[in-house]
């Protein structure tokens, strides 16, 4: 157990904790992390706190790292040393600086498996919550149909020729304002 804990801590300080979180749901990695928490008593390990696309909780290989302090009930019955790990609880990572602003990630572990990854702190310097991911997602036409009737003052479209302009919405807007 001692050896296992030391190895786990060494691995963790190499900065792979979050990578472990990532793969732990599929592989058995998470039980190692959980027993490391138990073995070293109170503190967790150093891990990468990267958040390229925070909503999906992906880790990437950011160089920003922080010590993951465990909070909540790390109620793993570590003394048993059995393979039947039952670690449960929530674990908060340290706040790390990203280009989106300060970000803190929390994981929820149930029976040795990560059941949730939450971004706790998504604020910019003004204290407003920010959009951490700007990735494009499918947009349903029916969802934006209401906007069709919205008043607009100008129209953006692929460049049209002077001839095509004559029958365009922009021409109608311009004519109304002549």
């Amino acid at each position, binding site marked *: 157990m001692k050896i296992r804990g030391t190895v786990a801590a060494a691995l963790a300080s190499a900065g792979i904790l979050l990578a472990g979180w990532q793969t732990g749901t599929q592989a058995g990695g998470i039980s190692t992390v959980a027993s490391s928490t138990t073995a070293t008593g109170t503190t967790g390990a150093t891990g990468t706190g990267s958040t390229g696309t925070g909503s999906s909780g992906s880790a990437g290989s950011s160089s920003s790292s922080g010590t993951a302090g465990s909070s909540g009930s790390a109620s793993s019955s570590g003394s048993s040393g059995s393979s039947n790990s039952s670690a449960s609880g929530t674990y908060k990572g340290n706040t790390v600086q990203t280009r989106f602003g300060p970000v803190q990630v929390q994981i929820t572990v149930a029976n040795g498996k990560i059941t949730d990854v939450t971004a706790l702190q998504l604020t910019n310097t003004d204290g407003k919550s920010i959009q951490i991911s700007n*990735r*494009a997602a499918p947009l349903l036409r029916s969802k934006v149909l209401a906007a*069709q009737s919205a008043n607009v003052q100008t129209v953006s*479209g692929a*460049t049209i*020729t002077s001839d095509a302009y004559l029958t365009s919405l922009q021409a109608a807007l311009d004519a109304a304002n002549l």
Partner: protein
Amino acid sequence: MQQTSNPLPATAGTTLKARTFDCMGTVIGLTLPVDSPAEGQPGLDELAAATAVVERLFRDLDETFSLYRPDSEASRLARGELTLPHASAQMRERYAEAHEWRLRTEGAFTPERPDGVLDLSGIIKGHAIREAGTSLLALGRRDWCLNAGGDVLVSGSPHPGSAEPWKAGVVDPADRLTLITGYPLGGNSRHSAMATSGSAERGEHIWRVGSGAGDDGFVQVTVAAGDIVTADVLATAIVAGGTRMLDRAADNWDVAVLAIRADGSMLATPAFQPG
């Protein structure tokens, strides 16, 4: 998408007025809120004066950069009668700017045609809009909307003194008389420029690049950004570079993107998502 339906408070005495002119093969329009248009000779004169400044600027740039004019500097470069080191300072500056964008977009945007001819038309309209905006601000105009063939740059608000943004509609590539959605520009919006590129109309300066091959491609891409050249270049680059370039743009620039495929399906970054 805030405020999709926002009945405007009738600002006393202010009405939007527009003037248009033909240049660069398309129509450019300037819209200003004008005081008391009924008797408003001063207001309309200001609009006419502002439009004249914008038109002068577009015509000067077109004379230098148009490949449709055999006597332009760009045409002489294309024929090899002139080499870049001997070209005018503004020609070299635009070339440098276009090349910088080629690097930033990993080649999805390029100032060279497949036949090797230098073609800066992908950046000149955006540059002209940018310069026109600078001139309007220098003239003391704070509230205006400039639309050059579907690329838009605004300042201030349609209701002077308020934080209300201008509202730009995005045209449906399948039906030019239908809008797909609207987007706020200027006012309290973080973006003041919007450009749309399409593979259907006048897309001759867009060439598909290898990175875009394999996905089914976009027929129309709209980008909102803080400045018009970024919006224009990235819209062009995403049409050429497909989903990969879309992700790169969303990750690396403060932009909002609405991309439409040939089958009508759409991808949108959060700012274009309703709610």
